[in-house]
């Protein structure tokens, strides 16, 4: 029960801190769920994040799986694990949604305010820095993991860089590339 309340608290706060989109909150989410609360391992976090990239809809819906895994980790029965998933989804989506709903009412009053442009221009580099920290938060286990061999790490880094390069060169659905990464991983990383 205490775990469910902690999940609620952490994800409500993350919802309101997700300035500049979901990816900006990834490093903080990784820190809270892996290091502070130990709900998921670093490997789980990277896997769950990447599963979220394969499902349709908003990619941050994967937070529900962190709730599921946290409840499973705490030894709760599957019914509670599903409840935890719903709680985390509500905690992550409701606060920011209420805020947006309310703010869209009063937004028009600020339409001509020159500070709005300043906020957008000023926040842009902070958001990019946070996203870069998100790359690091997921990549420190998914791309380069000191527990793995040089061959393993070389291949995971190569897969990531290949995806980055292909996306810059070709207009292709990223979900297909992620699936392709899975096939390459299955073929070359089995039993290593």
């Amino acid at each position, binding site marked *: 029960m205490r775990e469910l309340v902690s999940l609620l608290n952490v994800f409500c706060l993350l*919802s309101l801190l997700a*300035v500049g989109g979901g990816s900006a909150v990834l490093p903080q989410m990784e820190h809270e769920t892996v290091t502070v609360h130990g709900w998921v391992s670093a490997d789980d976090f990277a896997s769950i994040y990447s599963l979220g990239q394969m499902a349709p809809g908003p990619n941050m819906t994967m937070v529900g*799986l962190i709730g599921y895994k946290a409840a499973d980790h705490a030894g709760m029965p599957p019914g509670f694990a599903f409840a935890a998933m719903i709680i985390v989804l509500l905690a992550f989506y409701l606060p920011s949604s209420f805020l947006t709903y309310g703010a*869209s009412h009063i937004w028009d009053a600020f339409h001509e305010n020159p500070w709005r442009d*300043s906020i957008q221009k000023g926040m842009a580099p*902070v958001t990019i820095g946070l996203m870069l920290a998100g790359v690091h*938060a997921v990549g420190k286990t998914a791309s380069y993991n000191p527990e793995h061999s040089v061959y393993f790490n070389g291949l995971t880094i190569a897969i990531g860089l290949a995806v980055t390069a292909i996306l*810059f060169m070709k207009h292709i659905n990223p979900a297909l590339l992620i699936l392709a990464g899975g096939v390459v991983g299955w073929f070359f*990383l089995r039993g290593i």
Partner: protein
Amino acid sequence: MNKPTPAALFAAFFRIGVTSFGGGLVAYLRDEIVTNKSWMSEDEFLAALEIGQTLPGLNSVNVAIIAGRKLAGPAGAVAAATGLVIPGAVILCILGFLYVRFRKNPDVAAALAGIAAAAVGLLLQVTLKIGAKQFLNPIDLAFVLLTFVLVGLCHVSLPVVLFIVAPFAIILRRPRKEASK
């Protein structure tokens, strides 16, 4: 411009929620709301996107809330947001169940390692693409790196960055009187 019912909004956003594999949701939303259904003009959509990007939360969900409210009031906002999120949540529910059960299987573990490695590449590409302008501007780049080091390497908590670093970034971009003649 015709106004949809909440049910029509739910159906339209649900369809996006089912088909939008691979991210880039805002483009899907624009195609449906502006092009296919003509529920909003291009300008109205861009205004909604601007609010959605500035406020906390996912851009796509925020746009759904704003568009839903404008088109069909509170019920419209709920219909649009739930329609967008529910399909992915159901699919992730199944994926999560399978993940918890089979993640120790060597075949599954190897495939997951490849999938996670590819997802890092995707996130890196998105970051570089939308940050292209910021990486080339020295002041912006300083804030990009400062934020990265503080949050990514030193684990400074996010509120510290948002309430101490971000205000400086915003003040440097403050409105200039002389620019408006």
